């Protein structure tokens, strides 16, 4: 069934009885050509592109909970292509292009909005570092502008220009960056995959990976054994546990990242704004809540919840940067499990087991990568070759030191990225 304004109108006039399930709830088959472990944003988009780009429809997504119940359902919804390191630059550029055609492609309103992202800087040195990044963005073919203080004031008059502890020197503006409605993206990919014949199996936890003589044979699940020639692991913060089923140890540490949303307010912030002297970023959702977050809590966690010190630090950053949000009330706080890597950049690679692939290490930046990651991972799984925009996301780059993509430049300490 196609979604459209006409459809909404017609259904509304006839008692809304014609709406159908957005996806089926099939029983898992005994065998598939490929199985994707993980029904989050990346797992669902991988399945979609396997079906759409590579004609692989005899595949299944196995999700231990409900679709989109992990990080894709609890992030701060930022979409951007403003990375400075080779490897990341081309990947996010490709992903952003996919975003820009997403609603049409999926026939689902993901509410993608290029409202513009401004990364503020607070010293000459920081400005130059952002300039280096902005030039990389333009080299890549994406957009970037370097704003001075007055340029920032013109866009964001509500920042505290007079009293802030770390004065605003300017900002790097990325107009094509913005936000999207996170649930809708997951559901759109789910529906798209399902419509193409992909089986989405929920409440199905993978408990083991069957490998014989270095070749993957299938998986064990709480809903039975499933044979498959190709298996893709796309489970974000749970990567360590699932990879262990294949005897692998990963360069991943799982950490908690908190995020917050306020009560709904009339529009007051039109862009995505990030602070340069404290990890803090904020935007306003279409429902009116201010959505914001900051740093990791810095300790490994699977609890999906954080503690007061970091929460208060995030609020402090908000108050020093834009005191006008002071009377906005935080409605809800939550956390997710971030799969942190030693250089803060992701992994899309084969493994030593033939037919077993892994897509992980997105740290806290996975949402914007949902289209690109699925596209590239599908390419890798289907063809056995790396997709050019994701070619540098190698698992072995830490061991060899070749192709590290350390955006934060903090080095091999997972919680520093």
């Amino acid at each position: 069934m196609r979604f459209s304004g006409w459809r909404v109108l017609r259904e509304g006039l006839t008692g809304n009885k014609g709406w159908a399930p957005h996806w089926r709830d099939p029983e898992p088959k005994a065998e598939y050509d490929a199985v994707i472990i993980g029904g989050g944003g990346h797992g669902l988009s991988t399945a979609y592109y396997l079906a759409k780009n590579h004609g692989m429809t005899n595949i299944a997504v196995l999700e231990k909970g409900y679709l989109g119940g992990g990080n894709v359902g609890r992030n701060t919804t930022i979409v951007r292509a403003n990375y400075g390191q080779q490897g990341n630059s081309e990947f996010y550029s490709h992903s952003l292009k996919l975003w820009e055609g997403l609603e049409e492609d999926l026939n689902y309103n993901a509410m993608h909005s290029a409202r513009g992202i401004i990364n503020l800087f607070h010293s000459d040195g920081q400005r130059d570092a952002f300039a280096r990044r902005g030039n990389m963005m333009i080299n890549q073919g994406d957009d970037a502008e370097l704003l001075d203080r007055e340029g920032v004031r013109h866009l964001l008059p509500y920042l505290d220009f007079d009293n802030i502890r770390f004065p605003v020197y300017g900002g790097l503006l990325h107009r094509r960056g913005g936000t999207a409605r996170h649930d809708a993206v997951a559901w759109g990919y789910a529906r798209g995959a399902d419509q193409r014949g992909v089986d989405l199996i929920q409440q199905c936890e993978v408990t083991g990976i069957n490998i014989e003589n270095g070749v993957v044979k299938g998986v064990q699940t709480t809903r039975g054994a499933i044979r498959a020639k190709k298996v893709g692991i796309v489970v974000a913060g749970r990567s360590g546990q699932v990879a262990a089923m294949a005897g692998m140890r990963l360069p991943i540490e799982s950490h908690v990242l908190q995020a917050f949303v306020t009560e709904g307010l009339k529009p007051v912030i039109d862009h995505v704004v990030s602070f340069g002297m404290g990890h803090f970023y904020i935007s306003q959702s279409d429902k009116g809540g201010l959505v914001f977050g900051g740093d990791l809590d810095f300790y490994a966690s699977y609890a999906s919840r954080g503690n007061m010190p970091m929460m208060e630090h995030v609020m402090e950053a908000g108050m020093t940067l834009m005191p006008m949000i002071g009377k906005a009330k935080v409605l809800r706080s939550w956390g997710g499990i971030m799969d942190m890597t030693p250089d803060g950049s992701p992994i899309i690679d084969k493994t030593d087991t033939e037919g077993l692939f892994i897509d992980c290490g997105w740290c806290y930046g996975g949402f914007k990568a949902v289209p690109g990651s699925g596209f590239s991972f599908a390419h890798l799984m289907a063809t056995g070759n790396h997709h050019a925009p994701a070619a540098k996301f190698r698992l072995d780059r830490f061991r060899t030191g070749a192709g590290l993509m350390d955006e934060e430049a903090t080095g091999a300490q997972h919680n520093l990225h």
Partner: protein
Amino acid sequence: MRVASKGLIDRSKPVHFSFDGRTYRGFAGDTVASALLANGVTLMGRSFKYHRPRGVMTAGSEEPNALITTGTGARREPNVRATVQEIYDGLVTRSQNAWPSLDVDVMAVNDLAAPFLGAGFYYKTFMWPKRFWEAIYEPVIRKTAGLGALSGESNPDTYERAYAFCDLLVIGAGPTGLMAALTAARAGADVILVDEDSVMGGRLNAESEAVGHQSGALWAAGIVAELAAMDNVRLMPRTTVTGAYDGGMFGALERVNQHTSKRGGGAPLEAFWRISAKHSILAAGALERPVAFQNNDRPGIMTAGAVRAYLNRWGVAPGRRVAVFGNNDDAHRTARDLMAAGVHVVALIDSRAEAEIEGFDGQVITGAVVCNTGGRKALESITVRSEAGEEALQVDCLAVSGGWNPTVHLTCYMNGRPTWREDIQSFVPPPGAIPNMTVAGACNGVFSTHGCLSDGVDAGTAALKALGKKAVAVEVPVAEDADYALVPLWAVAGKGRAWLDFQNDVSVKDIKQAAVENFRSVEHMKRYTTQGMATDQGKNSNVAALAILADATGRGMPETGTTTFRPPYSPVAIAAMGAGAQGHGFAPERHTTSHKRTVERGAPMIEAGLWYRPSYFPKAGETTWRQSCDREVGYVRKAVGVCDVSTLGKIDIQGPDAGKLLDFVYTNMFSTLKVGRVRYGLMLREDGMVMDDGTTARLGEHHFVMTTTTAAAGNVMRHLEFVTQCLHPEWAVSFTSVTEQWAQFAVAGPKARELLNGLLDKEIDNDNWPFMACGDVSIGGVAGRLFRISFSGEHAYEVAVPSRFGAALFDELVKRAEALGGGPYGMEALNVLRIEKGFITHAEIEGRATASDVGMGRMISVKKDCIGKAMAARPGLVDAERPQLIGLKPVSAEGEMTAGAHLFEREAEAVRVNAKGHVSSVGYSPELGRMIGLGFFAAGPTRMGEVVRLVDHLRGVETEVEICHPVFVDPEGERARG
């Protein structure tokens, strides 16, 4: 209307406030909601999506409808609950989300379009034409979304953060909490008793029943008085515990002055608390839930408990013709209380066919339900459906009770999921969900007053046991102990929309629709319909919505599950949790000893981490910073310049194994450094990248002083602590930061020695103080240190004195420098000087550069291990094609260079795949008469003399530049050694 002789308000203190421009009178103790109801105002808000007229539904913080904006101008505060906001003289309030007025709201037209605006409709449309989404649809949606509006101005109010510690934190001061606190306090425990409300007592203040032969409210006041008199008790009314966190920590928001007009100065509006409790008791009570039926959202329809609260606590009858509708015995109390107060009760409607009603002789209709209501902006009638058929009754206030939901939220904040109890048809906390927390009373499913009182004592006793204290006997007063007799009724069958989430306009139909579209898990249903995502976070609708979903998907309640709850319990202002951080409060300021004098000289100060350092020292007549900078560079190159370098990290390292430590953290050898000498050192991270560089001086056999860069001081200190504790605790070495203990100044230029010899008690010359020498000196009798090192490449020193002499020394140095034709210099000049000499800073060693990248590969000694040595040898890090440090100068003298520009081969297109390097630092060199810079280029050292292209798209700069040796001035380094 007011009911005489009822209510805990103070009728001797009238209060005037305004709502939507009209002034109303209330009394001290009234909330905006109670005062408006007393004045006959029932329309207080509009719903989010359909802008349906809404009145107040509850009497507490869970209120979903009556959200107002208080205050004016920059003090404007949106989304305040009228049920929580106490009135004070001069309080200005306005309704929200209606235009042009609450009474006539244009957006109510949405209600007519309801069939098209059901759950999830926006996912199915707004996609075409593509550009319309951002140009039209989204802006319109954003404008109509949101409830209240921020003022947009900087927040002028003050907030505070505070900390408290206790043995026992009791959350909720109703009958359960009061008894628990009393039990623990009498036994000597340190108790903090917290309650959201302004008056402690919980439901007792809203009921007419007696406790221990007194009115419940009076009894509660007596207990509060006893607790207030105890030294080991802290009472915190108007305080909401917002979250439970690890280690017995709780967050709490205290509304310090929200009920007064006091603002500013020492009157914080709110305080956010961190409370550390060894043990806690959750006595948070229960919240009443309504029943869903067609048009159950009209102004005048409230929960039965709220009607009692308005009557008994605030002396207000919310209507003149009241009906009561419920599925349990508790609802009967409303009918009894109203009748006893002389308010006309039109009918008591009980859905249970076998209901027994006591103490009420008005009209009773059992086995019946309310299936519809009438009246657009205020309730006018209700339709009652019974076996006999349907009957319309004229009613202006309907009290509804679908039962009670224990307030379990806090117990779910640490991954707990509540458990379904079939007997009370609600969820209760899972045992042990929060470490060291006991749950008691109504929030644990105990619904009778006697049960709560007794449960409170038990909980207090259990807490005392856990704390290792002996309990003192506490008598449980007499109170009602009725059974909670309830038959579930979630929704009344009918055609029209029956509301569940009142604020977000989610109806029973929407839930069923979600299930049809396969959003069958409770999380999916919630996200798809937005039920439970309004400001009440589902307090009024979660359980009912779950029941509807369970029914629609053919599952039981436990099987359907529940969404989890997350902090905060009630919304908390960002300003409260971030109190103190506005403006300069966000981070400390670190000032050098020369700060005052520097500022007096008009030097613009820039932030270097937390420090402030001068950018340049303007002189009269100079109009651009470049003029000042060029002049200051000239001071150093031609006369003598003075610069405060105190901000660089200084670490005093002592012990027989100090040399071992330095050899291990630096790439080069330090144990062989002679006493009285300084050496430049490079420090790597374990992954092989450069962490920091600096100089370390050997002042004695077992005594070194290490310097770090300003930015990396903390990191290096942490690193040394890691190395000596985690890797080599066997080394006999101690160290401490002395950055703030020593004020240190660079004295640089051909006349540096001349200047110093005028100050030092003992003169120095090139023999007794050669390049890279160091040692103790005396300056006017003050014991100081002198290091002959140079960041400028000139003949230079750094002189250090204990900080308390810093300001005086700076004055003295500057005076003498000026007498010699020089003067102070700032960061801009410092930067030019060091670039001229090819000295790197963190602009070059930005965390991705190895030693060989910056041309210092040979500084990694082959004779010893050091941090980072092994990983630095990884194939990817020794690749010759890596970008490596080079000097850059424009081919033409006027050529512009910018830091952050990328470098390409001359003929290559400026796109990513052709990027070969970047520019890290630039400055104008007065000596060379052109810009110079440092940067990185693939295999840079092999490209000396070649011309490449610098492209800065952002700043519109494109320049041909020559790759050259990074040392531009005095490449032999003779000046420093003279």
